[in-house]
């Protein structure tokens, strides 16, 4: 069902948790269809210095959250904004067709967190 990479991220999720003093927080999802993702950012000089997530959702939701944090960490905000859901899915070696809507969320949550950061810093 899931690729080995998905299962690896699911078993050993990277960057789980929250940042006490987050510079930006993004939340997306809908409890109706079973997933909520929250991403916390710490930004220094336009670079994502630290990133954490909390996710309520299936194996794919947790794995994509984990993967997106790994992909975003160390990137500039502009680079991070270029990450797409498709890229996250590819990074994970693909997702089952029925699960594609979960991978949609991970990049969206990252974007929401970056926007939150930009907004509170009037960028």
């Amino acid at each position, binding site marked *: 069902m899931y690729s080995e990479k998905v299962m690896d991220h*699911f078993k050993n999720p990277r960057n789980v948790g929250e940042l006490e003093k987050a510079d930006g927080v993004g939340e997306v999802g809908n409890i109706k269809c*079973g997933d909520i993702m929250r991403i916390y950012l710490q930004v220094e000089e336009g670079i994502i210095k630290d990133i954490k997530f909390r996710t*309520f*959702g*299936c194996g794919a939701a*947790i794995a994509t959250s984990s993967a997106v944090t790994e992909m975003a960490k160390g990137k500039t905000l502009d680079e991070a904004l270029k990450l797409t859901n498709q890229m996250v899915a590819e990074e994970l070696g693909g997702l089952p067709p029925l699960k594609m809507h979960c991978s949609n969320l991970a990049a969206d949550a990252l974007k929401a967190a970056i926007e939150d950061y930009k907004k509170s810093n009037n960028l």
Partner: protein
Amino acid sequence: MRRIYLDHAATTPISPKVLEAMLPFYNELFGNPSSIHGFGREVAIHVDKAREKVAKAIGAASPQEIYFTSGGTEADNLAIFGVIEALQNKGKHIITSAIEHHAVLDTCEALEKKGFEVTKLPVDENGVIDLEVLKKSIKDDTILITLMHANNEVGTIQPIEEVVKIAKEKGVYVHTDSVQTLGSIPVNVQELGVDLLSISAHKIYGPKGVGALYVKKGTKLKSLVFGGGQERKIRPGTENVAGIIGFGEAAEIATLSLADNERISKLRDKLIEGLLKIEDVKLNGHPINRLPGNVNVSIEYIEGEALLLSLDMEGIAASSGSACTSGSLDPSHVLMSMGLSHQTAHGSLRLTLGKGTTEEDIDYCLKVIPEVVHRLRSMSPLGKN
């Protein structure tokens, strides 16, 4: 790694005695029971014996009331479409419940699209229908009431005898889906009083792909598929002989070993008690009128599929009513009909015990599940963490 199978409501391992009974029919006894020669006649005798065993297991008056099908799903479809087809001149109204298996629910909905009227009885928070509501729902043109004997997700047992009493007064047929009850609680068609009843072999330690519909003598029923003369034309097609033989054996064993369910229900209660000790966990389904092997709990703040995958990694095979396990958007229609919120329904966990379940299995679950829940909750944005 220890592997614990707690998904007996999904399917059961085949009993060695059942397999042993089947094997000759994959070897020397390969004839087609419809054939007139010795190879066929010999097999036909055994098919009849299996029919007798199944009839006896459910207390049918005669083996001629048993029609073998390819499983519980087909038995349900045959019951509903078969009655509708036979009685459509009499009426167009069917009564069912909101928590039926999809084999019944989707069939009723297909009929709705064809112009039939379907009443889906609501259930209370324990998953039980209201007999008063049922009574009021029956109309002059009601031709069938189809209500499951016990629910596959939450294990709640319905008061079928009472349903039958109400239906009989109005002369309406009653079908019940006993796929989950045979072998778990007594199933006797004459005591229940139903006109039609569905069962399936793979839920009672028999093979997958064979089931049966009990049709009380005199009940008007048309076939769903057409072809040769098998199953008295109600269910044509070359018989799944080995499957039928296995079903007969499994049905016989199931009724002989009903006593084991007392042991199973004690383990169930221990498991429920232990799980309820975890914070923000609640039992789904009826606290008392539930199947001996069924445990269904909602575990707040975590999602079912993630829980299942984590448990699987620890060797525990379970099931969930989360939408994410099926890739659909809506979580279990059963849990939602019982009034659970989306979030709570998403976090449901079903553990169904069976003959092979031991006290050690339960102890292992009670050690592992709280740990897994804790780990997943620590990842969740919901709840207090």
